[in-house]
């Protein structure tokens, strides 16, 4: 149990919704969510298919612990071939949508084909239907969510939707659920839009059955106590959120600034967690109102913020005066340091628009940073930008750009291609800070060496959440390693990648790993699920998932040459801070990584590895 053992298959071409039994043999090998959905995807699509074509599929998948009383049991993932990357895409989101899917009686939704006209899907317990969405097309997430609740006269529905950006093919469009939680990366929202699927509304009134309820309650209570007593998950994350990292990473000389030209940002404090809690210079009120938690979460790292009503972005727009999802570290970095903008209200406004229109703030902010460098180098001019002065540090450029990109209008159409395509169009591909077409997050590989290998080998394109070695290299979790050396990082990255693959397939949040190890996950999964779930089995599942994703990418046409970093990070040393003089030592780490992985020198899993992992 704990899986509902039921899938909904939606064929948009035929307009049908059919229930299917979950493949329990696969569940035993891939657990759920990221792993299990990826297994379905790789079995069902041609890896070479056009991500935005009719042959791609998009899967919304929970894990076995989603919807249970385990702490953070609200996660689901959107799995597809990424619009931004052409690689395997798996974007993980919190909020309440995933748990509601379980309450409605489903482990996952597989969507295939293309609808002739815009539609949305409802799942009300076991009753699943497609509806005309003509009146919702062209609307934002913030308009669609309440509209669907009103149409079905149920304010308790949980809605995941795309904004205008997803309809218009912005390549890093998100799927946003519960208004401000997002499956954010790799353009999963663009895939959803390509299928003319505007939204999914779910209402479930059932529960989630676990294998051994008494044991499950005992073990989840024990693990919640660990989270509560841990200084990070019990105190720091609820009080400061992920944004507490802004000053940490800046002091560590690893805060990518102005499109990775610099590694420290003079405006870091102004956009940090500490600044969010301080009274604003305009109205004396802080940006941060409170923290917030997703379904079942006992950490509560989310930020709820408010834009100063007198700020230029909203002075004449009272519709943005309400409280909503505030800046998390990655968004604050991309919208701020990557663009050189240190105006907290401008960043918060841009973040609101990213949620409202469903665009990934990491790829958006990083793309704006690349466009600003193109502009300052004279490669593009105001003629190309429709009059927009794309200068580093300009809050007006940032906030106008986000409005345009959210609706794919004017220069926003070009920004919506992502930095790889944008810089290539203007003959400067070296200015795109990407791997496999996806923009880097908020850690400079020159100052945190393990993150260079993390980015280069990430199956979904540059990503911090595939192996967050920052935890070890900067924060000393679970143990401190030196961020400036390459020795030992291949093994560290592999260990993080495999463990994260299992966590991402469980239905729980990766932030628990600041306090938990796989030893804490295993007994919770074992109590909830049939089968014998041990730490070793979870590690093996994680490794199997990583290799399965790798095989998909190889079949899609990626090679070892794509496990690389931009020349800026390999050739141009950090100019300031503790990493001054360092470049990324990727060339020292990658061969060892391939060897540890059981891959050939060409980065291909050997027959022995494939056999060992039963792939």
């Amino acid at each position: 149990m704990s899986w509902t053992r039921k899938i909904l298959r939606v064929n948009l071409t035929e307009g049908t919704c059919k229930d299917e039994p979950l493949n329990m043999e696969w569940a035993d090998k891939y657990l759920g969510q990221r792993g299990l959905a990826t297994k379905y995807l790789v079995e069902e699509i041609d890896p070479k298919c056009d991500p935005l074509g009719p042959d791609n599929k998009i899967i919304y998948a929970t894990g076995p612990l989603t919807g249970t009383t385990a702490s953070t049991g609200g996660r689901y993932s959107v799995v597809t071939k990424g619009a931004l990357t052409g690689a395997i895409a798996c974007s993980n989101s919190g909020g309440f949508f995933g748990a509601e899917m379980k309450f409605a009686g489903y482990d996952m939704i597989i969507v295939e084909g293309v609808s002739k006209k815009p539609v949305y899907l409802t799942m009300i317990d076991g009753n699943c239907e497609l509806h005309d969405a003509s009146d919702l097309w062209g609307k934002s997430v913030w308009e669609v969510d309440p509209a669907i609740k009103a149409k079905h006269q149920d304010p308790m529905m949980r809605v995941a939707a795309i904004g205008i950006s997803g309809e218009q093919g912005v390549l890093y469009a998100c799927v946003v659920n519960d208004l401000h939680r997002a499956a954010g990366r790799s353009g999963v929202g663009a895939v959803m839009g390509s299928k003319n699927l505007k939204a999914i509304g779910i209402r479930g009134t059932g529960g989630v059955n676990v294998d051994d309820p008494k044991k499950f309650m005992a073990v989840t209570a024990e693990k919640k106590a660990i989270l509560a007593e841990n200084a990070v998950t019990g105190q720091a994350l609820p009080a400061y959120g992920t944004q507490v990292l802004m000053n940490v990473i800046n002091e560590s000389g690893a805060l990518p600034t102005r499109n990775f030209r610099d590694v420290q940002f003079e405006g870091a404090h102004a956009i940090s967690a500490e600044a969010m809690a301080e009274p604003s210079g305009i109205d004396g009120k802080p940006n941060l109102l409170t923290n917030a938690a997703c379904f079942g979460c006992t950490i509560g790292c989310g930020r709820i913020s408010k834009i100063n009503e007198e700020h230029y972005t909203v002075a004449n727009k009272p519709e943005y005066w309400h409280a909503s999802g505030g800046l998390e570290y990655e968004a604050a970095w991309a919208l701020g340091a990557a663009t050189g903008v240190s105006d907290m209200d401008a960043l918060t406004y841009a973040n609101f628009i990213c949620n409202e229109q469903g665009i990934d703030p990491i790829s958006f902010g990083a793309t704006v940073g690349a466009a600003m460098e193109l502009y300052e180098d004279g490669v593009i001019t105001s003629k190309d930008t429709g009059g927009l002065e794309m200068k580093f540090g300009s809050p007006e450029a940032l906030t106008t750009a986000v409005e345009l990109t959210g609706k794919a209008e004017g220069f926003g159409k070009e920004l919506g291609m992502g930095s790889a395509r944008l810089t290539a169009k203007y003959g400067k591909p070296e200015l795109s800070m990407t791997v496999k077409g996806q923009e880097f997050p908020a850690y400079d590989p020159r100052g945190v060496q393990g993150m260079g290998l993390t980015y280069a080998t990430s199956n979904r394109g540059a990503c911090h959440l595939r192996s967050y070695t920052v935890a070890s290299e900067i924060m000393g979790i679970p143990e401190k390693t030196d961020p400036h050396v390459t020795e030992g990082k291949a093994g560290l990255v592999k260990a993080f990648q495999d463990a994260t693959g299992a966590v991402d397939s469980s239905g729980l949040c990766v932030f628990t790993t600041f306090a938990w190890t796989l030893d804490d996950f295993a007994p919770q999964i074992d109590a909830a699920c049939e089968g014998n779930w041990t730490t070793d089995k979870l590690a093996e599942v994680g490794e199997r998932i990583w290799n399965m994703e790798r095989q998909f990418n190889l079949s899609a046409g990626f090679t070892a040459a794509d496990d690389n970093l931009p020349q800026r990070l390999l050739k141009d040393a950090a100019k300031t801070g503790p990493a001054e003089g360092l470049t990324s030592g990727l060339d020292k780490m990658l061969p060892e990584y391939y060897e540890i992985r059981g891959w050939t020198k060409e980065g291909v899993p050997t027959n022995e590895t494939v056999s060992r992992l039963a792939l």
Partner: protein
Amino acid sequence: MNITLKLYAALGDFLPPEAHENTIDVDVPDGATIGEVLTGHQVPLESCHLILINGHYHHRDSAASTQLSSGDTLAVWPPIAGG
């Protein structure tokens, strides 16, 4: 000698009111250690998890023996994480 002291997150409460952006320049005796500077500001050493001197990590156990130099920046956090 003069150093720059930065206390972040919950440790910010131990900064004097004149601190700006979690930062203050302070005069300390020549050769002062990390531990002496922190205890001088009533910062409980057991609350200090991440200690950086000019961005370089120093383990808390070395606080009593690690001397600062004039012009150093000492930045300290309680247990924190993000992502």
